[in-house]
């Protein structure tokens, strides 16, 4: 077990009988920002979904710890209560459940049902809506129901901002965003990402990393982390594409 805020070791993930993550390890220290980049189908989304406890993504091997607590033994609810947060790539609509009521329930659940934590809820929500340039009427709309791609991603970041997790996993939060929304969402991440915890960004493109500067960049391919480095690795990928690394690592191009 590592003393890092978040760590996992030799994680294997199976989806529908197929192994899509094949032994991935990472350690995230306090205040660190990490990015995992990789082509489509590399297993990066599967990794973060499995870590968050998605029932369709089974961790068949490996260890994971958040603040020293064993994640593997927890269900999704307990992982969230332990401080883990997943911003979804495709946030689901939950008809009939308003954004405000959903957040109230989540904040209350996190504090063991204590209602007093909701004292300043309204004001905090209004402030954060304003920062993320979301109309405050969204508070009474049903979660993601009829929201645009950009609105959904803003609401994911809003949830992170309101729930104040220890570790945030952001799954392709930049996908489907236009230039303006990308800027606003990135500002939101910079403002609200756990400052004394950890951040793990999963992305296909480098463009978000112009706004949210990672301390470490990792490249994932075929279910494995094949390269790790500093921010310069992202720029290198942007120039050369994933193929060059793939050639180097796997020594042959799969046809």
């Amino acid at each position: 077990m590592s003393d890092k805020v978040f760590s996992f070791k030799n994680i294997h993930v199976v989806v529908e009988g197929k192994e899509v993550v094949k032994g991935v390890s990472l350690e995230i220290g306090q205040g660190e920002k990490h990015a995992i980049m990789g082509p489509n189908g590399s297993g990066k989304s599967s990794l973060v979904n499995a870590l968050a406890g998605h029932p369709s993504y089974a961790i068949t091997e490996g260890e994971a710890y958040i603040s020293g607590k064993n994640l593997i033994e927890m269900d999704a609810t307990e992982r969230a209560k332990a401080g883990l947060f997943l911003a979804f790539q495709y946030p689901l609509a939950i008809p009939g459940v308003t954004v405000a009521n959903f957040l109230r329930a989540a904040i209350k659940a996190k504090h063991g049902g204590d209602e007093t934590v909701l004292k300043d809820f309204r004001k905090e929500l209004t402030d954060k809506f304003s920062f993320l340039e979301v109309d405050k009427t969204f508070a009474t709309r049903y979660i993601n129901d009829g929201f645009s791609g950009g609105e959904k991603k803003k609401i994911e970041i809003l949830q992170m901002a309101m729930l104040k997790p220890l570790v945030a996993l952001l799954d392709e939060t930049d996908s489907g965003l236009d230039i303006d929304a990308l800027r606003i969402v990135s500002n939101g991440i910079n403002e609200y990402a756990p400052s004394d915890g950890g951040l793990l960004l999963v992305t296909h493109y480098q463009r978000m990393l112009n706004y949210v500067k990672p301390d470490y960049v990792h490249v994932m391919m075929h279910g494995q982390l094949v390269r790790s480095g500093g921010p310069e690795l992202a720029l290198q990928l942007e120039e050369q594409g994933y193929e060059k690394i793939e050639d180097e690592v796997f020594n042959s191009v799969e046809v």
Partner: protein
Amino acid sequence: MNLTAIENKVASFRTIDKLEPEWLYNLRKESWEFYNDAPLPERVTNVWRYTKPENFLVANAEEIMNTAPLIPDGSNGHPYPKNSEYSAVGYNREDMMTMVKIDPAVAGQGVIIKNLFQAARENEDLVRQYFGTMVAPNFGKFEALNMALWNNGFFIFVPDNTVIEKPIALNRHPGDNFSHIRLLAVIGRNSQVTLVDNYSCSGRAESGVDNSAVEIFGGDSARVKYVNLQRLGPQCIGYITQRARIGRSGNIYSIYGATGGAVSKMNAGTILAGRHAESRMSGVIFGDKNQHFDYHTLHHHQDNESYSNIDFKVILKDKAMSAYTGLIRIEKDTINNEAYQENRNLLLNKGTKAESIPELEILTDQVRCTHGATMGPIDPQMLFYLKARGIGHEEAVKMIAAGFVEPTIMQMPNELREMMRGIVTDKLAGEQK
């Protein structure tokens, strides 16, 4: 009860009551004969496939028919409360019969809300023109039974060009025996009204068979909202036949909420009789324990360029059962009608049973029509979304299930929403049986 004995007992109809118009007496007598002559409905059509007709037979018809219809004092001596959420409130109760309280300002607009039996004498021409023309004696065996025996009911008349802002609430409290009640509503051209037709048992009535017939006539360009709530006691049996007819550019939104009763059967329909008519229906059924629901809807497009839409939602828990059958009929030689139907069933545990049968009778080519049905447990993806925010499994199930029906509850008048949410919450909280 011995059903064979009931079937074989054909009593002759009572003599005319001194307050009763002759045409009404004759209609009742004719209905009684129809009821006695009609065989039990055969269980081959979708309307009768899922529920035994024997449920709705009466054991004491003679006693009921000899209970003379009463006309009570309409005001009960109390002025109408100023801050009421309703423009009028009517009560059907076994002991106090029919009572109506109406906001004097609304009454001043020429709106009539009164005991139907009283209206049959006092507003004879109007009542006679519409009464029993949609839910007629020959509609079916139990509709004929209702026509023969009803002694409780309301007549509502809204003149042309009259907007009634606050809903009219009709509280039906059937007794613990057999109740036969009616509603006749005639809404004038270009008028607007919301009717809340609320069936619940009065405290002591835990059982009983409640047979209701509802007829709503909407004039051209009228806008009607009709909310039918069935919250009968756990031993009650409900049988409701409801028809609305809307004219040219008329608009009706019908909301059906059903959470009560042991056996609950409803046949609800709108006839779109004019061009550009629009009818929407929403349904919320929540069954638990051994409850049985059998809801049938009809959208009958008779003219051109009309629009209908049905969104019918069902939650089932424990060993509850629901059958939803929805008929869309579009007449021949009509053009550009649109009809949509969706029925979604949320099954909270194994052991529940849902049926969903769309029936389309489309006799023309120029039409747009879709239907869809889903049934299954809560989407595990949705559950994960809530759990990933720290919400526990049980709580997440409750939030998603309550959310499933919330958009429909939001369409109900303000003062019904908390009540409906409370019923949903209670049912969700109940231990699985």
